């Protein structure tokens, strides 16, 4: 049963990156869109993410619940040593979740929009940035359970070039996902060209940010290359991701939105796979070589068993409803306004 729970955990993380990420990306690309194009882009984005907006963020809750129920030691270690970046991420989540609703549901559209919009845009960058930092800190051996002073226990556990570059990389991934996603939403040729141009640029940015991650890992002695290239599945995942990125680049010009979305999703899946496969079942690598493993730090048998059943039963309800939600709003474009 523990494997069922781990599959749910991994899938929930992946879906949060994909769906939540595309969501964050919406705010990020708003930041990098010229003032003239912004209203058009904002409207398209709102139409696309409005109906699924709330659901996208539930994946994070699922991740947290699985961790604290099934793997309490892992949850509490992260909570204690990564307190500061977690608080920063939470601030982003609060600001973003509320600003989105405020700007779309305020009965009066006036100067208050100038308050909501920057909050939305800035928190769209802040949240995935700290999410990336947290993920990187978990696997880069920065957390030191022996640390006694404030800085080494609670600051250097997450603050490093490696973490920062992973944070930036996460932000670019979100922007990339959102850009590819929005191409499919474009109804006229002008929009499509605008979004295609942006998507193409984002691909380069993602690659550059990815390069920075490797450089930072190298300079801090984190064996990132080893992790990815030490076993066959990791290498295959990376090759597949690269090939599909090339295909995406070629396809950007042709009108194949669904294909593009699948490819982008596939790339991110492969990146997450390559990043997690080599240390599985370890999830947190600690300073000094000790690791927290999903298998040795799982909760008692009965807990894992009931958690597994709860997740299975839950997904029977959630998945069809979610698929139907996404399907029906993709089918009937047009009047998406909630007003």
């Amino acid at each position, binding site marked *: 049963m523990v494997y069922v729970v781990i599959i749910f955990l991994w899938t929930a993380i992946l879906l949060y990156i994909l769906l939540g990420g595309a969501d964050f990306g919406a705010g990020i690309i708003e930041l990098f869109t010229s003032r003239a194009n912004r209203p058009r882009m904002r409207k398209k984005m709102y139409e696309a993410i409005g109906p699924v907006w709330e659901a996208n963020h539930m994946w994070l809750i699922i991740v947290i619940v699985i961790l604290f*129920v099934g793997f309490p030691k892992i949850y509490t270690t992260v909570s204690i040593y990564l307190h500061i970046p977690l608080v920063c991420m939470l601030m982003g989540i609060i600001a973003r979740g509320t600003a989105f609703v405020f700007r779309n549901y305020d009965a009066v559209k006036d100067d208050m929009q100038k308050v909501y919009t920057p909050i939305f845009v800035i928190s769209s960058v802040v949240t995935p940035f700290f999410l990336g930092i947290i993920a990187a800190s978990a696997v880069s051996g920065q957390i030191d359970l022996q640390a006694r002073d404030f800085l080494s226990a609670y600051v250097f556990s997450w603050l490093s070039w490696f973490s920062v570059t992973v944070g930036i990389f996460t932000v670019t991934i979100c922007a990339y996902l959102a850009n590819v996603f929005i191409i499919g939403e474009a109804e006229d040729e002008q929009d499509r060209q605008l979004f295609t141009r942006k998507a193409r640029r984002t691909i380069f940015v993602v690659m550059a940010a990815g390069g920075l991650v490797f450089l930072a890992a190298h300079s801090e002695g984190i064996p990132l290359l080893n992790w990815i290239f030490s076993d066959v599945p990791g290498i295959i995942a990376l090759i597949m991701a690269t090939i599909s990125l090339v295909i995406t680049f070629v396809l950007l010009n042709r009108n194949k939105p669904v294909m593009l979305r699948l490819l982008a999703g596939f790339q991110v899946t492969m990146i997450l796979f390559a990043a997690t496969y080599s240390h599985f079942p370890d999830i947190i690598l600690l300073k000094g070589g000790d690791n927290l493993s999903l298998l040795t730090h799982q909760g008692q048998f009965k807990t894992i068993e009931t958690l597994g059943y709860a997740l299975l039963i839950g997904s029977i309800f959630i998945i069809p409803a979610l698929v139907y939600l996404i399907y*029906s709003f993709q089918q009937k474009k047009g009047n998406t306004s909630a007003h």
Partner: protein
Amino acid sequence: MDDFLAARLQMAFSLGFHIVFSCIGMVMPFFMCTAHYLWLKRKKAVYLDVTKAWSKGVAIFFATGAVSGTVLSFELGLLWPKFMEHAGPIFGMPFSLEGTAFFIEAIALGFYLYGWNRFHPWFHWFTGVIVGISGLLSGILVVAANAWMNSPAGFDFVNGQYLNIDPMKAMFNEAWFSQALHMCVAAFVSTGFAVAGVHALMILKGKNVNFHRKAFQIAAIFGTVAACLQPISGDISAKDVAQRQPAKLAAMEAHFHTEKGAGLIIGGIPDTATKTVKYALKIPKALSFMATGDFNAEVKGLDQFAKKDQPPVAVVHYAFQIMVGLGMAMLGLAVIYFIALIKKKNWAESKWMLKLFVIATPMGFLALEAGWTVTEVGRQPWIIYGVMRTADAVTPMPGIAYSFYLFTAVYISLAIIVSLLLFRQITMVDKLYDSSTDKKIQ
């Protein structure tokens, strides 16, 4: 400020904030669906307008409740890691199920808010009902988890070890039913009176009266029914607390000395030094009856508990008095409104009735916060009653005071923005909707 106090205050603030938003987010969908049902049945445009106006409130409160709930799921670990390390696997079951319920609520809300003219009208209405039901379910589940902290079950505590964990037993602990019932009814009372009060004020101002009158009626009926049910659930809760957490009951009542045929203390100022209550009204033998159903039964006083195991008496006592007092005031108003609905039709339309409802607007939420204070502060000094002390659960990270300031600032600004938003929603009603007549649309 020391870290322990800061952590407690931050948790109190976060919960105090979340509780208001999640209660509204949990109850408003039922009002919305009632208006929607009336629109589908009677085809009067005004009901459609009320439904749409309320659905925006639902969206705003759902979003705010959802983010503050997300924050809480992190804060449990950020502030109380040692509690979560042991408690997570035991009381996690309701949280896992709540995740499902909440997810379904979010999906259903997507269907509802964006589904106008896209689906069969009754399917669309049904998605709104699902929002309400799944919201209520997640409320019940979260309270069941909290009830476990008051009534730990589903594990054996041996030499500091938590053995033989049974998550189902933990979820269906002895307190889950009475707490969930009391909380859900309280959510209906407070939201009902708050919404009714706002619409009553707008009727008094004479703006878009037809619209606000329809809205007022729906909210007021929900609120009054719930207010009349609440004393029953309060009685169940009192007997339950008396049995399981006698120290909490003693603090609620400032009942210092164990005695048979104990009197019920109303109001008053408890003095822990002299173990007396000044200026209180005392009803002989009533506490014994309330706690056990027997006028002469013995009720444990605070003298039965070591000083270090006693909750702060004054806070719990005052909070309890406030809750009961406000509850009684709302019950009184509910009874008057009922009489008005059944016998004295002219009362229901009268200005004084509306004014009473305006006065009652904040009462439910004040009572809610007070009641929650009784539950949580009354459990102190325990985080898991009788098993783990709150002081032993706090994070080792220093500087929590800064985190407390930060979260407080964020919550205060959110509360201000949401209030502003609601104010604008309400004042825009006459510009957005033309509901002056009962016109029908085919």
